[in-house]
């Protein structure tokens, strides 16, 4: 029996090929053992450290602060290291040329890489370890911690991941060298700590203020504890820079010679 194939009506716009590219990226994350490996690794690292570090007499706020800082340091570096090859690896291997020889816009390509990887990192490095930590802390206190705070915490962590992911993807669209693509974001990460000490008045604007608690609680911790956020500087800076990096990545990749 023969089937008549129905062609997709394609136009010359930026959405061409997007749904299929997204589908491929999600499958690559969620229909392979990759997601289970990542969940296992990050749950052991993040949740495991909280359990090990959190003594019985540790206040819940201290445990959340510690967990948030672990995410801010370890998961952030994990995002950078894992995302460094997102563009470069496929471009070097020739897979990018293969995909873009199909009716796929370059904008769709970048969006799919961003969305696919962000969802993978969110589940493996944020959702599962945070739910484990939430359950553990709720057991310890004998009552359920506020769910709204939990959601707010995770939203901030995702924004933090987006910042480093968009920066890494943007650099991947400029450079063909993994060293530069991973090195610059790691440099930015450490520069934040350095400048927080040198220019403390700028610190509340830095992305690290979202999750890393230095002296005062980070925004993520405040949200988790259902406390009022005093200053939104980090959220505004991080959101703006994430969007900027994302659009620069698209702009640059559209000019790339393959």
């Amino acid at each position: 029996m023969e089937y008549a194939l129905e062609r997709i009506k394609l136009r010359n716009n930026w959405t061409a090929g997007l749904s299929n590219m997204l589908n491929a990226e999600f499958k690559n994350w969620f229909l392979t053992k990759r997601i289970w490996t990542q969940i296992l690794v990050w749950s052991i690292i993040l949740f495991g450290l909280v359990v090990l570090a959190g003594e019985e007499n540790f206040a819940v706020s201290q445990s959340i602060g510690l967990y948030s800082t672990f995410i801010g340091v370890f998961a952030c570096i994990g995002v950078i290291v894992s995302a460094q090859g997102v563009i470069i690896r496929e471009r070097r291997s020739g897979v990018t040329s293969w995909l873009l020889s199909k009716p796929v816009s370059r904008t769709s390509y970048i969006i799919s890489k961003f969305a696919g990887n962000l969802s993978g990192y969110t589940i493996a490095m944020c959702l599962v370890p945070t739910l484990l930590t939430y359950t553990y802390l709720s057991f310890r206190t004998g009552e359920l911690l506020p769910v709204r705070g939990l959601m707010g915490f995770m939203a901030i962590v995702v924004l933090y991941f987006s910042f480093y992911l968009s920066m890494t993807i943007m650099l991947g669209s400029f450079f063909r060298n993994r060293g530069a693509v991973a090195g610059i974001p790691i440099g930015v990460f450490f520069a934040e700590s350095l400048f927080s000490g040198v220019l403390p008045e700028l610190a509340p604007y830095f992305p690290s203020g979202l999750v890393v608690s230095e002296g005062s609680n980070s925004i993520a911790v405040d949200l988790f504890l259902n406390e009022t956020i005093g200053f939104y500087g980090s959220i505004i800076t991080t959101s703006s820079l994430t969007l900027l990096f994302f659009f620069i990545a698209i702009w640059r990749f559209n000019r790339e010679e393959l």
Partner: protein
Amino acid sequence: MNGNIIQTFGIGKSYKGNKVLQDLSLNVQKGSIFGFLGPNGAGKTTTMKILLGFSKASEGTGNIFGKDIVRDGIEIRSRIGYLSQDPKFYDNLSTRENLRLTARFFFKNDKKAIDYRIDEVIEITGLSKVADRKIKGYSGGERQRLGIAQAQINKPDLLILDEPTSALDPLGRKDVLTVMENLKDKTTIFYSTHILSDVQRVSDTVAILNDGICLAQGPIDQIMNDNSSNVFQATGRGYFKKSINELKSKPWVSDIVYRRNEEKNSTDLHIEVSDTREAEESILRILMRDPSNIITNFGLKTYELEDSFINIITAGAK
């Protein structure tokens, strides 16, 4: 479109001031197997990259199916199948999964219809036995077959193949050329190569590129005839001395090259003439006038594509 699937107008490309492609005007007719011929580094891949939108031309314009190669890239690529020189796919997927991913860029059907098409191309390219194996351990030939399969999945109006046979052994080459011949009635094929025998076997039209400059373009017979000059070839037993002297005295004979093989008692004559018609009527008569000559072969010298290619490239270099 004027029956042309691909048309380029004075396309050029420079990298850091170095011109790698100059003033290229191609006309690829619908239904043809167009061989894009040239030595390595001639600019063939650059041309293909420009046609596919991977790279922007520094000068000139072009269209495929009458649509602009820069502005209408998505529409153009929806009707094209492309095989790169060193085809790469998702190594962690099988042939079937890679083909399903490719098909989803073109078709919105349910799984059954797409799987039916995938089975068709797997069958055509002889990948049935390895279709469900991850492609990580594929041989060069299997990878090339997968490349051809994915290029055909959308039933393209134009196949662009970059050196489709260069990495293959003789058997693999033969297979790929057979697939190309079988596709002739279904699609236009524009392919690059430096293997002249492949071109001679399957192409009907060729363009010859060297150092970024198109030196010749047209039907393959015409390219070969244009470069055949007017040389008659005669072979026979005997010394042909009298005949050669007589031929030399004729005003329409420009040059005679004489080769004697004593072992075989054979003589080979190459007679270059300025008037083919006069030569056709007279040469054989002159040769046969001497009864000691026994003619075993006579005719206008036919050239292989290789001779034409070398002539064109050499003339271009001068």
